[in-house]
């Protein structure tokens, strides 16, 4: 897979899955916009890793729940590189996957849902609104939204998080339907539990072993496992696919 000359924006890519995606694109020659909100040194570390992997990268700080900051990110990217080929909406509102201490439905208020909807859906909505004029101009582009296999199989009912990710899939399908005629594809990648990431660090061995036992591939995803399907959906190898969700969970969910 060759991404030479391609400009890839990966939101929330200073750590975890986003960082793995950024590095994977860079290793195939891409120029990656490493977006982060807080940890500049981690983001700069990923930029260095991307360059060492053979690609190019810059770090841009932007809170994806802020329309203004996303506009600034897109403006700066277009100013530096004149185009954007791929957007990976990976950032989400911090969420701790701790099955033993999760909130039950009765304990959730609407703000919890709103927070997750803002983190997953509003941020993706805003990014798409902002970046689409540039993609439409070239009638090409691929948008990949990171969902979760919990949407299809709520192994642990993280209500607010999973509901927002479900909305993201519906959002993506509608956008795919509208943008198909313009040559712009929109797909989702839905990983299972990915370990280790900052978000999943609280997940106990017991839960991991339970998921492993039910997973045909008999292990839990690593951040690197998610990169292949993302790159596939970013590339021409999937040029006739849009509105799809690829489950990357070792076969836990089969759809």
């Amino acid at each position, binding site marked *: 897979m060759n991404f030479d000359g391609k400009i890839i924006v990966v939101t929330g890519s200073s750590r975890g899955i986003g960082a793995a995606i950024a590095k994977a694109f860079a290793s195939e020659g891409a120029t990656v916009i490493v977006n982060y909100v807080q940890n500049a040194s981690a983001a700069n570390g990923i930029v260095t890793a991307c360059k060492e992997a053979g690609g190019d990268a810059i770090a841009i700080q932007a809170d994806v729940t802020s329309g203004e900051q996303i506009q600034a990110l897109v403006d700066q990217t277009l100013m530096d590189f004149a185009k954007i080929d791929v957007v990976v909406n990976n950032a989400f509102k911090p969420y701790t996957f701790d099955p033993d201490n999760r909130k039950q439905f009765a304990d959730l208020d609407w703000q919890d849902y709103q927070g997750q909807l803002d983190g997953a859906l509003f941020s993706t909505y805003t990014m798409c609104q902002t970046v689409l004029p540039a993609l439409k101009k070239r009638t090409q582009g691929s948008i990949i939204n990171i969902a979760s296999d919990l949407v299809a199989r709520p192994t642990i009912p993280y209500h607010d998080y999973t509901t927002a990710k479900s909305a993201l899939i519906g959002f993506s399908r509608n956008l795919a339907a509208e943008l198909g005629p313009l040559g712009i594809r929109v797909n989702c990648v839905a990983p299972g539990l990915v*370990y*280790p990431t900052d978000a999943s660090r609280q997940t106990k*061995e017991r839960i991991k072993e339970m998921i*492993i*036992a039910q997973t045909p*591939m*008999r*292990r*839990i995803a*690593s951040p690197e*496992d998610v990169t292949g399907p993302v790159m596939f959906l970013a590339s021409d190898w999937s040029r006739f696919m849009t509105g799809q969700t690829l489950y990357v969970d070792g076969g836990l969910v089969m759809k």
Partner: protein
Amino acid sequence: MELKAGYLPGIKADNVDWQTLTYDRGGQAIDVSVPLLSEEQMKDLSARIKEASQQYLKSLTVSDITATIDAAVARLLDRKDTYRQQSEEYLPLITGYDAEMIRLGLTGYLKNFRQPELRRFIAEDFMNPKILDEFQPLPKGGYGKAYGPDLIAHIWAGNVPGLPLWSLISGLLVKAGNIGKVASAEPLMASWFARLIAEIDPELGKCLAVVWWKGGDVDQEQALLNQADLVVAYGNNDTLQQIRDRTPITTRCLTYSHKVSFGMISRAALDTGKAWEVAHQAAYDIVRYDQQGCYSPHVFFIEQGGAVTPQEFAQFIANELDCFEEKFPRRALTIEEAGDVAAWRQSEEMKSFSEGNAAIMSGASGAWIVAYSEAEEDLVPSGLNRTAKIIAVNQLDDVPARIAPYKAFLQTVGIAGPPEELHRLAGLLGAVGVTRISALEHMTSPEAGWHHDGRFNLLDLVTMTEVERSAETAAEAYSNYVD
């Protein structure tokens, strides 16, 4: 970043010659300073530890001691504690083991040393634990009290992080003063534990020390051996022979040499529902600390006749090792270790040429190798570092006779099979020298109070002082109430 190993009560750091060991196995180079004592310093240290042991440690009850150890272990289990945090941070860099494996391994291991477990530990060796505190009536008549030595010299191996704690804690439980010599491979954990003990009970902290010398430094070793009342040593047979030869004849020397462990899978465990789970457990035992423990399996004997054939089972194990490589990647090997793995692979490949169904499986990364055979093969140690031999057998009952020639090297057997088979095999295996039988997935985590190599961890350390019945009876004659 430089860390200091060792723990030397009563000796100023400035008066010690420090050497720097550099580690570069965990992806980031790290220096550790280790103390090198003069012979005179070793002698002085020994004398002080002996005195502290006599004056203070021997005056404590076993309950006092277990409470202090429990408090130290609680801190090592607490992920917010600085000792725990530095263990999680530095042990992976020192040993090269995967950080997650170490984190989980430490918790699983340290749980064995909480107070209830320590009491179990003592009860395992002493019917009446109070015999460590005061004279107790003996079943045969008379009274007895168990005395720990004033000074135990521990010479530790560095194969698995934290392992020195077994013998150090055993020494404390029998109220012995302890000087432990850490291996260069992992000098930190015992040092931290000693410092923790000293923080919790400064007086108890004067009863133990952690020292270092370069393996093979005869003068240093001799200086300690001359002072010890008892020597506990871990290592290969050559090293142990030398230690034993240098130990004064009046000093007891307990040695723990390299062992070979293996697994046995009954056809009853090889149905389509259970086989994967069993393979998962077996692979975990292989992966944990990259087979560096005496209890780590090298070989699995798989019984034919189950729904899942031994060959398919070998494939299951191969896939599980591949999955574990994602979860707990194998550490970077030294040149010697890589050489051992390559030599083992080569020898297995040579054997496989002459055997139709033999197979060698290995991952793309080369981080694991499974060799499968249906031949009547002997028990040969694997190449370590996630290399395992899977041998198909007609029936598990044939295995004990095959392994009998290796009696001196046998230790743990992990068994997956039904109860009647477990107990029948236990009898056959015990007769040929196996000292521990566990479930798969537990081979590398012995339970609290286990008998290491079949010996008594605490009982072997003490001497009994007995007041015989005759003395009691005779004393009666001199009492002031004699009629």
